[in-house]
């Protein structure tokens, strides 16, 4: 047994019951589900090196695998329980979470993230009423979930309305921009991508509203995590120096450094062809990735005042916007535009002796 933690994204199937227009993970190939044999081999290797594994069940749509699959997974985890603790998290569109699923997830301590864009179908996400129903079923079963919302041209003007909706339902939410990969590159789907300038402007207006909301009862990201970053506290993989701390196994047992870069040049090996997790970190492809990440961060450190907050940012973002050594891309500019605004705003409050109205923000201010 090792003493380290690792996060493992397991993409259990490529199938999904939705076809979101902006999905970065979309593919049109025939459905292929992961095998329990591959999962067990992964657990066996993890147990030999790590003491805690945060397992993020992902897809496609992971609920499509059925409860019997996850019952078998829990049995496997119990088999290795003397050597490793598994923490189960699942990212789902929520549409298939009926009362039985909700009870199962709550009973077995799965931490659930539901994708939901505020209810408006024009955003490119279908069946949002079903997503909300899934979330409500979790609540009835005594559980909770967080929300991931994708900000695009169809909802960029409604961020505050979405926030009020989430607040009423007490749903913590993370707002993400559209990742420039997968289905969003097809035809008119490109129109969903918000320009940097508009994204920064609208998100900053949203931040100002949230900061001054004395009735706030939910956490909103990236705002909360950016306030924490300004205080030197790092909670997100995108600013965390993720290499060595994350791996992803896809539905055929192939291992990659991250769930967002399932690409041949980042393939590290198949779970049935390696003898240890450590071995994956001594492959030529991992070395090339590591070298490029070091190069980009060196470049960022020399040219960008925000490096101290982002550590050179996310490898996958850089890859999606061009190549892994790229900096000053969309994600960089959006990060700088928002965190700079938050920094100035927080300084204004601090220097002016003005108390912060939002109770959720007051609690995280040192």
């Amino acid at each position, binding site marked *: 047994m090792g003493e380290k933690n690792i996060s493992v994204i397991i993409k259990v199937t490529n199938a999904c019951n939705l076809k979101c227009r902006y999905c970065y993970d979309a593919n049109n190939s025939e459905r292929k589900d992961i095998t329990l044999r591959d999962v067990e081999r992964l657990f066996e290797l993890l147990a030999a090196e790590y003491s805690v594994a945060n397992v993020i069940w992902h897809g496609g749509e992971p609920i499509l695998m059925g409860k019997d699959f996850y019952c078998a997974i829990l049995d496997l985890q119990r088999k290795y329980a003397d050597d490793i603790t598994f923490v189960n998290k699942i*990212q789902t569109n929520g549409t298939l979470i009926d009362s039985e699923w909700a009870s199962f997830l709550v009973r077995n301590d799965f931490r659930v993230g539901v994708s939901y864009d505020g209810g408006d179908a024009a955003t490119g996400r279908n069946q949002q009423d079903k997503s909300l129903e899934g979330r409500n079923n979790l609540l009835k079963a005594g559980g909770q*979930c967080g929300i991931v919302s994708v900000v695009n041209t169809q909802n960029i003007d409604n961020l505050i309305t979405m926030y009020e909706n989430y607040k009423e339902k007490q749903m913590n939410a993370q707002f993400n921009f559209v990742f420039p990969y997968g289905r969003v590159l097809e035809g008119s789907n490109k129109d969903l991508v918000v320009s940097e300038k508009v994204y920064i402007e609208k998100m900053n207006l949203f931040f100002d509203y949230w900061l001054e909301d004395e009735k706030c009862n939910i956490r909103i990201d990236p705002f909360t995590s950016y306030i924490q970053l300004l205080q030197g506290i790092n909670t997100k993989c995108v600013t*965390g120096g993720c290499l060595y*701390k994350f791996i992803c196994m896809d539905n055929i047992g192939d291992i990659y450094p991250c*769930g967002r870069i399932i690409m041949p040049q980042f393939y590290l090996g198949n779970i049935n062809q390696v003898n240890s997790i450590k071995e994956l970190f001594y492959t030529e492809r991992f070395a090339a990735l*590591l*070298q490029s990440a070091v190069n980009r961060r060196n470049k960022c450190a020399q040219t960008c005042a925000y490096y101290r907050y982002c550590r*050179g940012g996310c490898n996958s973002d850089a890859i999606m916007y061009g190549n892994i050594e790229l900096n000053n891309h969309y994600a960089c500019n959006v990060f700088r535009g928002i965190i700079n605004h938050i920094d100035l705003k927080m300084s204004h409050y601090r220097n002016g002796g003005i108390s912060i109205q939002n109770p959720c923000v007051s609690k995280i201010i040192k």
Partner: protein
Amino acid sequence: MDTKYIDELKRQYEEQNYNSNLSEFIHYTDYTDYGDLYSEYYDYSD
């Protein structure tokens, strides 16, 4: 594969983490820290 080369790269990478003045990235057991996921429920009731 030249393990010394990779170990040296790892050292440089971790030094960059250390020098950034941010806390070491913590794998919160109650926190979905993967970038596009979010599943923690924050209790602000206290």
